[in-house]
């Protein structure tokens, strides 16, 4: 693989709120090689988006990067001057968001916005930028690109807007594209087109990609390597094939088995993770996942495991590891979601009520 493009070392990003310090990103280290696609998965609030925003130094108030280094081609992003960081954003790294409507200016023509993204960084002359806009829109397969540059964002459909956003992201030929849930707001058929497009762009232009999503299927479709985050920490990391075939962290395992697959006939209950993600102002002691983990042992409650190698290129943060979990424990993780006793009482009530109605109707 290519050389390291982005290296995050022990990143801590915290939010200083009235309720206390929220440790949104709590010691994350990861790297992306040139041309590589890395998936960062986890549920809302796990810190995946804040990690991405930290790379661009766009963490919203009252958040702050409190420690750690973010090296992009050896330069530390956390130490960049204002001017340097502005140049870095957009020309070295571009980000596309879930809802393209919020990042496009509704009163400016789409073509002009893309043009502006180019001229702002002085990479292209004004005249060159104009011709490149059409080229870019063609590249992201916007039909009739020559006429559509003159349209306003509201004249674009959701899928076309996301294409325009990607075109704008690619305008300055960045070496890293960060995509935060780029397809979540789109319909499935449109989603498929955007995934297809992103695959092609990665192949054609060699742009490295950091895909932030909760959708495991999307990761399987687009990424070579995957990082799983939980409560501000990386809990597992490895090549996509390996992680999907033999996940070792119970959280990764649960995530993979909590979503049904469209290509499989129903054979089994879904694994549901009990309870809620922890409150990050007051995370649980020991392993952050232990209150929700179906395979918890005593050690998990007191001592937090570190990321340990579990297979070639695969690391996981767990004392137990899935390969040591017994079959019957797996079955217990799929137990009934109902209170049987309450169900029986309610049923008895219903029968009594039905009997009453019948007797009234009969009389």
């Amino acid at each position, binding site marked *: 693989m290519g050389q390291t493009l982005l290296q995050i070392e022990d990143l801590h990003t915290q939010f200083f709120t009235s*309720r206390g310090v929220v440790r949104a990103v709590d010691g994350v280290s990861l790297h992306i090689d040139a041309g590589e696609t890395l998936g960062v998965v986890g549920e809302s609030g796990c810190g995946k988006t804040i990690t991405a925003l930290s790379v661009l130094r766009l963490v919203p108030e009252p958040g702050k990067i409190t420690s750690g280094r973010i090296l992009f081609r050896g330069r530390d992003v956390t130490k960049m001057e204002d001017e340097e960081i502005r140049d870095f954003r957009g020309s070295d790294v571009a980000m596309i968001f879930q809802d393209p409507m919020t990042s496009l200016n509704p009163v400016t023509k789409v073509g002009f916005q893309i043009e502006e993204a180019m001229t702002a960084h002085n990479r292209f002359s004004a005249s060159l930028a104009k011709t490149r806009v059409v080229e870019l829109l063609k590249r992201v397969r916007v039909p009739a690109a020559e006429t559509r540059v003159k349209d306003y964002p509201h004249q674009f459909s959701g899928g076309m807007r996301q294409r325009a956003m990607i075109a704008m992201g690619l305008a300055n030929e960045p070496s890293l594209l960060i995509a935060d849930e780029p397809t979540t707001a789109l319909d499935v058929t449109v989603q498929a087109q955007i995934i297809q497009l992103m695959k092609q762009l990665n192949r054609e232009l060699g742009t490295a990609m950091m895909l932030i999503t909760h959708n495991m299927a999307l990761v399987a479709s687009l990424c070579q390597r995957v990082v799983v985050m939980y409560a501000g920490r990386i809990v597992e990391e490895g090549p996509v094939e390996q992680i999907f075939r033999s996940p070792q962290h119970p959280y990764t395992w649960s995530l993979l088995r909590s979503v049904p697959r469209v290509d499989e006939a129903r054979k089994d209950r879904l694994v*549901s993770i*009990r309870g*809620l993600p922890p409150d990050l102002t007051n995370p649980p002691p020991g392993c952050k996942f232990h209150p929700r983990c179906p395979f918890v042992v005593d050690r998990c409650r007191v001592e937090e495991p570190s990321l340990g190698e579990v297979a070639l290129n695969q690391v996981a943060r767990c004392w137990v590891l899935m390969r040591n979990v017994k079959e019957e424990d797996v079955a217990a993780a799929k*137990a*009934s*979601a109902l*209170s*049987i*006793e309450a169900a029986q009482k309610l049923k008895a009530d219903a029968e009594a009520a039905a009997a009453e109605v019948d007797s009234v109707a009969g009389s």
Partner: protein
Amino acid sequence: MATAIGLAGQVDWDVPEQTGLWKDAWVRFRRNRLAVAGLVVIVLMIVLALGARLPTAPGGLWRILHLTNEPFLQDVTNSYATPSLQHPLGTDILGRDQLSRILYGASISLTIGIVVQFLILGIGGSIGMAAGYFGGWIDNLLMRFTDIMYAFPDLLLVLVFVAAFGPSFWSIFIALGLVYWVGLARLVRGQVLSIKEKEYVEAAIMTGTSPLKLIVKHLVPNSLGPVIVTLTFGIPAAIFTEAALSFLGIGIRPPEPSWGVMIEDGYAGIFADPRQVIFPGIAVALTMLSFTFVGDGLRDALDPRMRR
């Protein structure tokens, strides 16, 4: 505990600490210092006004306690007296004690300001609710009528009504109510229209809630927040209008000492003794400002988007 109840299922047993809706709003209201100060001033003003009115007025409790004088007692030998221990704010042209007149006037201004809001709520609230709830031609009819009312300048319309009813406390009260309901009607209609689209209203209909219950239990409570804020802002507006009317001589009739009447009285001799205008003016300004601050505080406190 979970095993004692015999649960086979997975249970979300924990919930963050309880924060009642109104309690939550009160916590946020308290963070706004100006609003709290405004509230303190208003409460103080109400206590003083009640004291000046309740125990066998005029002059009331404060006169009995020998804190102020009788507001209607004239003493022409002592006109335009400078502030002294006996008359803390001096006297007017007829030698009447200014402090007791301002306190007595507070009862009139506050009564008008606050009671008119109930009339506004009654008229505007029901018109807005009917327009929003029923929609269609009822909405069209009611809203066009509202637009017509809106097209007239407020003060002019009040003048017309007062002239029609003849100047008295009650005619001002009714005139203000008949004019100022328009904004509230529009607000309530907008609220109802947006709440009607909410899934919880659909859910309530699905669970067999009758139309009347739907209005009382869902539409009214959920539109209450902005309505309270609007009515709070309406109080200073009504107080000001009353003062303006009285100043123009068609509001409260002398010798009743409404603040507007006092300013008008003092205006004649403004160069002889500017205090005659300044003290009641301060009273009007302070009251209006306090209600405005409280309204601001309520708006932030009752806005669900402001919740942490």
